[in-house]
């Protein structure tokens, strides 16, 4: 009995510390990454999705609030900013290729960005989604901080946009490859660009683990579409709300 009390005291002490949640996050990610590599990088075995799933189950099971968990996990979250800056490095490395393809990059960006916004709007109307939710969904292909800013401008709910944006990233990373294979697209620049444009950072992480060129074009599309979306959504929004 005494032993059990002691264990409980240790648990209460540890779960209040950021270290515990930091360790749990890295541990679950290592499991996800191990399975991803074991599956020979099969897209459905996405390491991000697996670790999110594992951690969420643990938090629900232990009845821990997200805020408590984030206390520890924020140290990992913090590195997202510097990592975004670091995306300049692979783009620089392939700069000659980027320069050579600059015309098709420009047009694919405009077509892709408009397609992402309009396809979302049409599907939402078909499913009779509430306006507030639609506005929160329109910028979903941009990286989360950009998408949240746009959502606020057009009358969406920024925190809902954050949820939708991350789900978009996971969908792109998990199922994007199948769409590309189905269309028999072989050009790695095009495959990477499509993934990065539609599913931002999470898609880019997946592209980088598969192929260097695809990773670079995905990172490029992530940056460019962040900018394109913040210009196009407020513009298209005025036209779309007429329907």
């Amino acid at each position: 009995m005494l032993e059990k009390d002691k264990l409980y005291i240790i648990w209460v002490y540890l779960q209040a510390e950021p270290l515990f949640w930091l360790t749990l996050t890295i541990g679950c990610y290592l499991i996800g990454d191990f399975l991803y590599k074991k599956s020979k990088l099969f897209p459905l075995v996405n390491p991000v999705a697996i670790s999110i799933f594992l951690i969420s189950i643990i938090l629900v099971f232990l009845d821990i609030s997200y805020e408590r968990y984030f206390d520890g996990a924020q140290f990992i979250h913090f590195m997202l900013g510097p990592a975004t800056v670091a995306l300049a490095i692979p783009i620089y490395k392939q700069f000659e290729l980027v320069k050579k393809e600059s015309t098709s990059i420009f047009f694919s960006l405009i077509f892709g960005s408009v397609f992402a916004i309009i396809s979302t709007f049409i599907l939402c109307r078909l499913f009779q989604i509430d306006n507030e939710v639609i506005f929160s969904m329109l910028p979903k292909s941009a990286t989360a901080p950009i998408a949240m800013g746009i959502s606020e401008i057009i009358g969406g709910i920024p925190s809902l946009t954050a949820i939708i944006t991350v789900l978009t990233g996971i969908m792109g990373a998990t199922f994007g490859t199948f769409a590309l294979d189905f269309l028999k697209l072989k050009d790695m620049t095009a495959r990477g660009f499509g993934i990065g444009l539609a599913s931002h950072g999470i898609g880019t992480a997946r592209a980088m683990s598969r192929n260097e060129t695809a990773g670079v074009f995905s990172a490029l599309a992530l940056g460019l579409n962040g900018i394109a979306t913040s210009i196009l959504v407020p513009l298209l929004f005025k036209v779309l709300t007429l329907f």
Partner: protein
Amino acid sequence: MLRAIFIIFIFQLTGEAIKKFFEINIPGPVIGLILLLLTLIYLRRFKKGKVKDLKEDITNTGNYILSYLSLLFVPIGVGVVMHLAFLEKNLINVIFIIFLSTILTIGFTAYVMEKLNKRLDARKR
């Protein structure tokens, strides 16, 4: 490595400052990305010496951080799962719409780009 991290942080800080100063909607890190890219292109002519060493340091450190890019999305992703109830009655429909429009966008964009690449390459020849 520490020098490289310092420089990457400086670029992000500069990005954040520019964002605030011009009140633009683009996140600080994305502005930092653009600035770092421009700087690397500018420094291209340094083929040896201290600048080249520093560039190599930044490249290695940056690539190391990027090899764990997936991990960095986990904390925010857990928040998404914990807050899914937010979507209430719309949940299934919204997830389906996200799924469909995302894979359609990926396919469409990549298709356009592959066709454009082929056409432009043919014209150059």
